[in-house]
């Protein structure tokens, strides 16, 4: 014991034999590199459990993974253009069902509010003005009323009619203050919307489905995930 001190293996302050090295035995080298990535194992792993329930759970797991990818919750990265456009790609696209979150349960800032609203109004305005310009003659207005009546969409047609009337009147006032007109119109819209229902956000921000025509696809992206 005492011999260890001072000479030879003086680096150790304890009895080296206690750790399992006999006197004079060579100590193992210092490890200077990280252990191997796939070290050899002394014992082979036991085989996995197999059985009916295991098989069923395996199938469930794999099915679940595939289903998740087709759910609207799976948000894909905007794809970069592939080098070769494949013909088959067209047929492999899956169409996801839409998902409209229940906004009442989410913080207000989650709602795609402003953009959606503006875009919505714009498209609506565009529609309105188009129709107005095509129906400049007052005679045509009657026709239009009939048409709307045929559609049988009572409530809505009334609204539209009023809107048109209003916008027409403003139009008559002069073209130079059209911007103001637009603003006024917007206000009109907002008032109407708020009258409809105070706290039903879905109705407020996602108007009748008719409005999501071919021209307002981008709005859809904003609103539904």
């Amino acid at each position: 014991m005492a011999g260890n001190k001072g000479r030879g293996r003086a680096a150790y302050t304890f009895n080296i034999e206690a750790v399992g090295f006999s006197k004079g035995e060579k100590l193992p080298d210092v490890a200077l590199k990280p252990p191997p990535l796939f070290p050899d194992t002394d014992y082979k792993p036991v085989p996995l459990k197999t059985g009916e329930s295991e098989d069923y759970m395996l199938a469930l797991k794999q099915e679940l993974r595939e289903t998740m990818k087709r759910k609207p919750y799976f948000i894909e990265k905007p794809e970069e253009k592939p080098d070769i456009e494949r013909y088959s790609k067209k047929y492999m696209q899956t169409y996801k069902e839409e998902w409209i979150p229940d906004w009442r349960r989410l913080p207000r800032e989650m709602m795609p509010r402003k953009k959606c609203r503006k875009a919505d109004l714009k498209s609506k305005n565009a529609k309105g003005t188009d129709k107005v310009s095509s129906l400049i003659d007052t005679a045509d207005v009657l026709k239009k009323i009939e048409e709307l009546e045929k559609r049988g969409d009572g409530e809505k047609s009334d609204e539209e009619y009023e809107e048109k009337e209003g916008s027409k009147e403003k139009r008559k006032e002069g073209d130079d203050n059209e911007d103001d007109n637009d603003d006024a119109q917007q206000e009109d819209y907002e008032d109407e919307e708020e009258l409809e229902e105070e706290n039903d956000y879905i109705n407020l921000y996602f108007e009748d489905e008719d409005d999501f025509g071919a021209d307002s696809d981008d709005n859809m992206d904003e609103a539904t995930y």
Partner: protein
Amino acid sequence: MTQAEIKLCSLMLQEHFGEIVEKIGVHLIRTGSQPLRVIVHDTGTSLDQVKKALCVLIQHNLVIYQVHKRGVVEYEAHCSRVLRMLRYPRYIYTTKALYGDTGELIVEELLLNGKMTMSAVVKKVADRLTETVEDGKTMDYAEVSNTFMQLADTRFVQRCPMVHAPENSDTQPPPPAPNLVINEKDMYLVPKLSLIGKGKRRRSSDEDAAGEPAAKRPKHPTDNKEPIPDDGIYWQANLDRFHQHFRDQTIVSAVANRMDQTSSEIVRAMLRMSEVTTSSDAPFTQPLSSNEIFRSLPVGYNISKQVLDQYLTLLADDPLEFVGKSGDSGGGMYVINFCKALASLATATLESVIQERFGSRCARIFRLVLQKKHLEQKQVEDFAMIPAKEAKDMLYKMLSENFISLQEIPKTPDHAPSRTFYLYTVNVLSAARMLLHRCYKSVTNLIERRQFETKENKRLLEKSQRVEAIIASVQATGAEEAQLQEIEEMITAPERQQLETLKRNVNKLDASEIQVDETIFLLESYIESTMKRQ
């Protein structure tokens, strides 16, 4: 959160919700709760994308929000809840075993969609079931909602926190985020849909008369206008209840392995009696008298009261202490000690891991140290009856892998090695933590390997999918056998072989994930119950 857990969360989110959600989710897990604007800034993702991702995460109960002062809403991710996604197959399978296909689909829909209203679940499940049964038959809404009510009664599904609408909202501006409150009383209360259910059933039976299955029914325009009866009442799967069930099953099977089938039936009866009366995180069940147990044993299980008492005494005397005796009234009061049971199960897991990794002789040393609590090195060598040199080698190996820990007790204040006792001991809690951490790592590795395998063979997989699609479409048009064979031969023999290998490997990896999760469950329950007791 350890790195291994975060990595696993990241993989889970990516597999289930895509890369954008993964980015936001992982960012929230790393940083804790954050307001929207900071998330947008720090992740460098567009505002819209962040909003979408957060909506998805909130929908799936993975993120919660809170309003802080000055109306800032902060979002916080639940890391442990994300990891639960690994267990989804097991939840679904369990419900299938308990409540059949209908229950299976209800829980599956709830897990896939995060939260849903009861009417939506019932509708979806009825439609899905109708698709599977033969033509002409339909699945009644009433039948599905019955199963749903059973699930709610046994607490496998529960209500999500409700939106608490502030009163006289006209005068004040609406709050920045809805106030979600949990109403304990209503947690498992199924909304009165019976009337509506009948109405729906009538409608579907009307259509039965017309010979049109419900699934194929075109959406009535009136459907949109009629108010949803249970609007705003959302349901989710109650994962804690599932865990309670898993725990009980494990205890029952452990008792069956240790003693015999009859004693496991007795324990099962005790657990079933206290299922509803005991909360899922209580350390003990309510005390049950032997008379009560005798009455609630399954019918046709013919054992006399005397035999039952003998069994109970035997169970209470067992050193593992799964069952404890708490009093003598009513023919003896017995409880099931969950804490002890989970500790025994966790210890058994540790032992078996050591046995499989280091061999049986190491396991002997481990058990020895476990039993004797503290041992000096010399004692270990003697008691284990293993040559000193080998014993040392094994002991150090387990020490370096952190299964065994070392306690220094200096005789003098200078901590000189020659005047210090070195005691080897097993700290089960920390060893279990370490093993749990390793399990997380293993699952991460398994998923990464699976993704790698799939990516390597992407071209082949796509090809086989295409060929399958072509075959299906050709078959639909009624092609000849020769034609079909020709198409099938588009995949060459070596390719077919490669596909087979891939499938086998992926299956194996997937199965391993599920089975590692069983160990994860056990260790987590043990750690949780021990932490609560302290």
